[in-house]
């Protein structure tokens, strides 16, 4: 069972943002969603969440995602955005407890013991137990992002979506976050993560989905699809691929941007 997207199209005011995108993300694996700015990565994640009207089908573990009730969908998939801030006076525990909203009864005043156990587990999984009582706004960017992941885990999702979760983090926090995702995938969670950094994607993802101009440009394992030709046609850069001898991942060395006219960016 996996996430399977077929013939997905999204248009905003008659401009196509995604056209006929089809791919699958294997269960219990990390799938990286890559592509240049404006390729449609965020729109694709929004469509999976049912936030934008889309044509085509999105199936996950036998569920037709766009047709599910919002609450049920929020129990099945969770989203971690690019570092999002708040001005509210919330403790880290309060923020993680937001993840229990899809499970709470309408008039439930406090998280019940079962919710508390799940919140505690999410805090422990992300190494944020020590911050639980602190106010969210006093944490560093990396710590805040881990708390967001904890909140998403408290939703107990089977499918975790992340939209460029590493973009404002320092390198250590990036590696910590991706190691956490590895661990969660190992425990059976399906993960789809939009990433900017191709070397991080090559190192941590099992499967890559490449978008360009709202269309699927390629999908497959990092070793298969990260080629100088793809980097040239999709990103408009000339680059070389060397092998990282320590772990066998492809490593990209960028040379230069190709002049506009020379890049063969697919339509």
């Amino acid at each position: 069972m996996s996430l399977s997207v077929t013939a997905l199209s999204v248009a905003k005011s008659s401009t196509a943002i995604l056209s006929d995108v089809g791919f699958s993300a294997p269960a219990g694996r990390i799938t990286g969603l890559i592509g240049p700015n404006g390729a449609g990565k965020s729109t694709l994640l929004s469509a999976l969440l049912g936030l934008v009207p889309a044509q085509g089908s999105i199936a996950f573990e036998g569920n037709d995602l766009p047709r599910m009730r919002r609450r049920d969908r929020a129990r099945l998939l969770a989203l971690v955005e690019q570092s999002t801030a708040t001005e509210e006076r919330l403790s880290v525990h309060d923020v993680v407890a937001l993840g229990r909203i899809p499970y709470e009864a309408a008039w439930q005043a406090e998280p019940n013991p079962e919710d508390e156990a799940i919140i505690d587990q999410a805090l422990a999984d992300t190494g944020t137990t020590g911050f639980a009582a602190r106010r969210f706004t006093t944490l560093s960017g990396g710590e805040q992002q881990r708390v967001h992941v904890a909140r998403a885990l408290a939703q107990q999702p089977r499918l975790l979506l992340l939209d460029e979760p590493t973009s404002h983090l320092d390198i250590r926090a990036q590696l910590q976050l991706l190691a956490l995702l590895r661990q969660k995938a190992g425990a059976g969670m399906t993960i789809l993560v939009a990433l900017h950094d191709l070397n991080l994607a090559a190192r941590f993802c099992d499967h890559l989905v490449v978008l360009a101009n709202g269309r699927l440009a390629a999908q497959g394992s990092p070793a298969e699809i990260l080629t100088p030709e793809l980097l040239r046609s999709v990103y408009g850069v000339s680059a070389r691929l060397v092998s990282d001898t320590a772990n066998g991942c492809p490593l990209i060395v960028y040379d230069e941007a190709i002049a506009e006219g020379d890049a063969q960016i697919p339509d």
Partner: protein
Amino acid sequence: MTITHRLSLPALAVLLIASAVAAVTFGPADITPGEVWSVIAHHLGILPESPVSRLRDAIVWELRLPRVLTALGVGAGLALSGAVMQALTRNPLADPFLLGLSSGAALGAVSFLLLGLTLLMPLGAFFGSLGALALALLIAQLLGGATPSRAILAGICIAALASAATSFLIFWSATGDSYREILSWLMGSLSGSIWSDAGLVYLALAACLPIILANGRALDAFAFGDTAAASLGIDVPRLRWTLLGATALLTGIMVAIGGAIGFVGLVVPHAVRLAVGSAHRKLLPHLMLAGAIFMLWTDTAARTLFDPRELPVGIITALIGAPVFLAVLLRYRRIT
């Protein structure tokens, strides 16, 4: 949790009742708390014979009690409106007065009054506040998204327009005493509140409170924005319009009764948040009671400080509110 809870609901409730009784005793005629209880007990049929003279009974029952109850309800309603608007628009500066809703409601109310639709005046106020809200959100959208400062600028624009239209209507239509009366009401005043005013305020609260309290948890989901709320299973557009509609109704009715009493929706939620945190299921009941108490004491000050003259209570709330507005502005300067 480190965000400690220094206010408790029972303590606030006791303070509210004690304040209400104390406020009834304040005024030109000296009334004791014992007399207040006797009058209430007598009118509720618990005491068949009242030991209080008819004049003093009338002062308590006809003048002070309706006004105190109106003040409590208006304070609770304005504080709730402010808190809901702040959460839904993620704008710490949102307030029915600052976003132009109060001015819109005043224009609606005055228009209906001058059209001779005196009984429907609260409905006019509701239409006015709803129109102002829709316009504020539309202008903020035209400016490229409703950031806090854009929403305030839109509110300034609407308030200026609505106030000019209101002044124009009053200038053409009102004379002498009615002129002075309308101006005093426009500045925000609970002077002359009667039982039917209190009734209308509590009717509006009864209509809106269940909707707002039932969605308290959903308001928490907006802490990180619309997308985050939607990913938690919240129907964002529907919730937004339902709750903003409820706040427009509350504001409209509160303005119809008390005029444009500003800043209550700003001062009270911010103060209460410092004490109990931002979790709305906890915050909303606390700030309702706190708003009621705040309004009661500012109104009591308004009617007793310069006795026998009465100050419009809007002047007092603005004197307190404007510095708080500045403090909030400084505190959130990064995002405004």
